[in-house]
């Protein structure tokens, strides 16, 4: 007992000596508590009849209503559609946005002209740094059914009779969204794989070459196994954000910008629906419940990816 008291006193003294350092740390901690942790408590309004006008106190004082909003969401006539769109977009992005950067990295690494290689690599990640709004504007300028430059060219050349409604046809939204995501982020993700390729021992290539292996076989037997580690890492990391669009992480912004009344049946996802319910219609409790459904699935996915990471590399993400 006495020893413990002495320990506590010692602790206080130590704390006092580093009070300046603690002040810097606690400022950041306080910030995180307010802006990150406090909103997590706000999640309980999904189980309550919350009115925005009741303020922060209202979060705690408003009436509990249990799972009412969850049942309402699960029985909403749009539920299956929203779930389907969210999962379809995420899956398609995973399937295409994942291998293409690897392919691009291999192409760039196989290029023998240094200036050309540099030019293409530098150009390839430019789209990553512009906003989705800009991509939205550009896609309209190029792909709109009547005024889009690409459609106009195809019609003029006689390849098409009428422009293809890439942006308004519900049947084409997923395809357009995935292509734009790939366009925007492939060059950026290729950087990581290129770095991995440059780390491969070059004597391996020489040895294989002497043994008579052609370039394709060298790519297959040396390059790909050499970057297996990076591929697995990136794959694991993208599991947690799967429902947000994975490594290209653009589901919300894309559906928000490119979704319109015509393609709504395929463009509306859980997050944009939650946004509309909450911000546009003022149904805050319901919107929180909808959002929470996606968050819960995501948390499960993060935990899975952490487990997988631990198993493979012996070190978890957190």
């Amino acid at each position, binding site marked *: 007992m006495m020893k413990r008291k002495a320990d506590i006193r010692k602790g206080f003294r130590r704390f006092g000596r*580093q009070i*300046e*350092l*603690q002040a*810097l*740390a606690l*400022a*950041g901690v306080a910030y*995180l*508590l307010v*802006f*990150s*942790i*406090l*909103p*997590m408590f*706000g*999640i309980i*309004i999904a189980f309550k009849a919350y009115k925005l006008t009741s*303020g*922060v106190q209202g*979060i705690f004082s408003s009436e509990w209503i249990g799972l009412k909003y969850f049942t309402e969401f699960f029985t909403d006539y749009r539920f299956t559609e929203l779930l389907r769109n969210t999962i379809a977009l995420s899956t398609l992005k995973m399937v295409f946005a994942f291998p293409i950067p690897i392919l*691009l990295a291999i*192409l760039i690494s196989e290029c*023998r002209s240094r200036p050309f290689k540099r030019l293409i690599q530098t*150009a*390839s990640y*430019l*789209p990553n*740094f*512009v*906003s989705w*709004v*800009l991509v*939205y*504007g*550009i896609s*309209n*300028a190029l792909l*709109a059914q009547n*005024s889009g*430059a690409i459609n*106009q060219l195809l019609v003029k050349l006689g390849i098409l009779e009428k422009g293809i409604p890439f942006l308004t046809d519900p049947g084409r939204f997923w395809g357009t969204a995935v292509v734009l995501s790939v366009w925007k982020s492939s060059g950026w993700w290729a950087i*990581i794989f290129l770095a991995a390729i440059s780390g491969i021992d070059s004597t391996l290539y020489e040895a294989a070459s002497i043994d*008579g292996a*052609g*370039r*394709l076989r060298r790519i297959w037997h040396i390059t790909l196994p050499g970057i297996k580690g*990076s591929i697995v*890492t990136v794959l694991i*990391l993208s599991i947690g954000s799967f429902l947000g669009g994975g490594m290209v992480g653009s589901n919300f*912004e894309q559906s928000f910008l490119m979704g319109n009344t015509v393609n709504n049946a395929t463009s509306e996802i859980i997050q944009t629906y939650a946004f509309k319910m*909450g911000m546009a219609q003022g149904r*805050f409790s319901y*919107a*929180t419940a909808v959002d*929470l459904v996606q*968050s819960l699935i995501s948390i499960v996915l993060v935990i899975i990816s952490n487990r997988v990471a631990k198993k493979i590399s012996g070190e978890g*993400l*957190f």
Partner: protein
Amino acid sequence: MKRKFSEDMAVDLVVYILLGLVGIVTLYPFYYTIVCSFNDGLDLMKGGVYLWPRKFTLGNYKLFLEDGDWRHAFLVSLARTLVGTAMRVGFTSMFSYALSRNNLMFKKGYRFLVVFTMYFSGGLIPFYVLLRNLGLLNSFWVYVIPGMVDAFFVMTGINFFAAIPESMIEAAKIDGAREIKVLTRVVLPVSKPFLATLALFSAVGQWNSWLDSAYYVRDAKLHTLAYKMMTVINQNIATANTEAAGQLSQANTQTSFTVQATAMAVSMLPIMCVYPFLQKYFVQGMMIGAVKE
């Protein structure tokens, strides 16, 4: 021997063709935007402009600059980029410096909090409720305060600062320097790559940001360039649709698309300007993160 030679050539050929395509597909959309911004609006509507302006004009830029709304949106974006970047760099580096010191008490708990917030959040609506109650809605500060601490960069900063020799810090302390002085005089000057990466990431993020304008700001005077661009694109699509139905005269929108293209070109400009630096530091910064992972 002959077979290997031809495979080599074939691979080269495929590589050059595919990379050439990648280059064109990546750069042409940007180039086309710039071409549109320099072309006369009415002329552009006739179609057929692909490679260079057919009827060259600076009129779109003149219209853009003369329009008070566009100018204002540009200034809002510029202001948030400067203020937001300064605040994030300052606060994030301060926080990660404190957390990087080995003797800091409760270090583990603090770090856990940071990592925890990296993976979990309360979601949009509770955050909105919070901002509303803090009185941050409809104010300029909603652009810069919520992004002051970036958990990912706090972790990166901890790794970076922890590699600074303890003796440098101790020496400054023996000379009687306070922590904040140790940070600004000793630690930060040797952490330029970290600061540059953080500043560039923040600046690009701030400049491109538009969602917070959509979420938290009603006042049109606070709308950013990217947000204003979005509303104008939507307007133009809507008018194009009604025009197609023959309800409106074309003269109405003869220039609105080219002015939109001008705004898009203007919004690309700062990114292009910092691109050489981006290349140097972003790649480095991404690697700092990647190695840790």
